[in-house]
């Protein structure tokens, strides 16, 4: 029982991170129908940016209040990662809009390779240990086989994710920008005819996706305490799995899918074998696509002649 509760806590934490990345995939796929392969590496880049800003704040500027540092790191990482993703879209994807469908995919794979190796070249190939922060834990139960703990980090991760998802939901559902975004998702040509600036909306989609990935990157860096240039690929593919599981194009689906993948991975590691946790996540992807190609909350794709 203790084990189950502890794994549940860990799984939800991991799932929150996957969910945040998955939104970036699902939004981009919804609006331009492309798998943004570089998104996982954008996430990795954001973790590096967060780490550097954190070090700069504590070492160069000497800010001591951890809460303030965390807030500034989060905001800076979101802004700078958004700038990166905006530039990537502008340089690598926009010229290929309207080209045949494999072209942006190959361009995105190239971008993914470029980003990972760029970070390797400028920051070095070694693992970067992050100074520990928010180390306190709350003992949820005690006296059993072992104490179930809930760390401040985990509360922070779930809390930040929740708040940002609410803000994001408001943005998409209630603002003019969100309406434009949803309109482009339904029919880009029609939206353009009705005066929606499609290029600008797509840019904004990339910016929002990157900002959410940066939140995930900051939390990931803080939670795992180590970042590496190759950290983008596997979380990226798993977040994509989450997006597909939830139904690609569906925003609540991405979050639910992220939570499910996080839970499946954690429970698999706890009860079976941690060696095969990636195999478990990828098998879920294959099984979902074969038996439920539109995911949990997705709309079925209609094939027309």
């Amino acid at each position, binding site marked *: 029982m203790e084990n189950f509760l502890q794994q549940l806590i860990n799984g939800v934490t991991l799932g929150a991170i996957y969910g945040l990345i998955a939104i970036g995939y699902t939004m981009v796929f919804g609006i331009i*129908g*492309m798998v943004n392969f570089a998104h996982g590496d954008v996430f990795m880049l954001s973790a*590096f*940016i967060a*780490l*550097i*800003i954190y*070090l*700069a704040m504590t070492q*160069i500027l000497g800010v001591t209040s951890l809460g303030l540092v965390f807030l500034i790191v989060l905001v*800076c990482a979101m802004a*700078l990662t958004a*700038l*990166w993703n905006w*530039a990537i879209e502008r*340089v690598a994807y926009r010229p*290929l809009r309207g080209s*045949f*469908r*494999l*072209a*942006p*995919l*190959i*361009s995105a*794979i*190239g*971008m*993914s*390779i*470029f980003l*990972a*190796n760029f*970070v*390797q*070249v*400028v*920051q*070095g190939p*070694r693992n*970067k240990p992050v100074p520990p922060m928010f180390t306190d834990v709350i003992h949820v139960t005690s006296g059993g086989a072992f104490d179930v703990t809930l760390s401040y980090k985990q509360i922070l991760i779930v809390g930040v994710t929740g708040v940002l998802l609410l803000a994001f939901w408001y943005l998409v559902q209630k603002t003019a920008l969100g309406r434009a975004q949803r309109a482009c998702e339904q029919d880009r040509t029609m939206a353009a005819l009705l005066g929606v600036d499609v290029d600008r909306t797509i840019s904004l989609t990339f910016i929002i996706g990157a900002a959410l990935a940066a939140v995930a990157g900051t939390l990931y860096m803080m939670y795992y305490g180590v970042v590496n240039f190759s950290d983008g*690929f596997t979380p990226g*593919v798993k977040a*994509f*799995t989450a997006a*597909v599981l939830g139904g690609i194009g569906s925003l609540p689906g991405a979050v639910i899918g992220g939570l499910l993948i996080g839970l499946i991975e954690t429970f698999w590691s706890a009860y079976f074998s941690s*060696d*095969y946790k*990636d*195999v478990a996540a*990828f*098998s879920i*992807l*294959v099984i979902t*696509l*074969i038996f439920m*190609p539109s995911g949990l909350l997705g709309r079925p*794709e209609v*094939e027309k*002649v």
Partner: protein
Amino acid sequence: MSPSMSITRALREAGFAGLVAAGLAFPILTLGTEMDQSNRLVLEQRWSWMAIAAALVFVGRFLVLAFARKPARAAPHTGARVLSPALAAALPRAGVIALFLFPMVMLFWLGPQGSLKWINNYGVQILIYVMLGWGLNIVVGLAGLLDLGYVAFYAVGAYTYALLSTHFGLSFWICLPLAGLMAASWGAMLGFPVLRLRGDYLAIVTLAFGEIVSAVLTNWTDFSNGKAGIMSIPRITFFGLPFNANENGFAATFGLEFQAIHRTIFLFYLILALALITHVVTLRLRALPVGRAWEALREDEIACRSLGINTVNTKLTAFALGAMFAGFAGSFFAVRQGFVNPDSFTFMESATILAIVVLGGMGSQLGVALAAVVMVGGTEVLRELTFLKQIFGSSFDPSLYRMLLFGLAMVVMMIWRPRGLISSREPSVFLSQKKNVSGALVQEGHG
């Protein structure tokens, strides 16, 4: 040729690009994380890098805006081409002859020691990728099924030979067809569950499949010896004659002086033969009903089904045949290296092979070969650029930038020529006269 933009406007836009570059460079370039003595991370400030990055982007953007012509949109029916028809017809023949002569010329010119690197690192290495590219071309270029897990079949081939030869002592010549069969059956096995999937979904499932295969090879230690890999795989023999200095070896039998280069040259001709077999089989298959069905499937799956083409068999044969050639290439890889471990079969390999196919112009055999030369040969050349050390200082390692430039090249080539190097297609079926069509008229990755 008139400049496409006024100089002031180009300056203004380039200035904007430079500013963006400075913003992008800000934390990741200007502040480097380094370990100090006590293994703590400390920041190293290098603000000059930011200035350099911004200046480079400014100058580059300005030159492009002010002096590059807008690419003229080619009419879709003419088919823009890099090569003239006569050259395109002559190039394959000349290429094959040149490849046959290549090891001899190198040996004569540079001697046994000097030519080893050229025949091995350039010749054999590029030909492996040409073969893999042609194999994947069957799946992606002809049948239009986007496969991101192709390296899994390469791994199946390599491990088939590695395991059969180390455990059962089977020779390479028996294992080669077995590896092909094994990979083909794995291809069909992957084909079954993904029959209903299309486009990007298919790509992701094949990617997941590739990752599962590599995770199993890494973790199932009893079977594959895990990360450590399988060592001392028997080397290639000349149809039974080993390449060693013994009296029953290849050199002694043919009355030659023993040299290590003999094996490399034999490997070169072997992979050349395998690659050419892949090519010829692909060409012949395109003329057969199954090949025509592949191309029809690529163009329109619904029309295919309405015309009574069995799409299940068509897709499965494409997967199986593409996988078979990867299996051949895999067992060749194992016999060449004498060592296999899961690190050789990562997603990066799949991405490289797919990039070669797409950059070559999908469906174009010549284009795939050219792209393999450019991408693989190009990254090999980067290892050689030691003179750059004199410019940038001795700590500069050009091979570090290999994959960086590879990724960048993929992006640039896509923007420059989305339809690949050879963007015209020869139709397999025609009415009265064979006309080249533009690649833009061909459906791809339809699923």
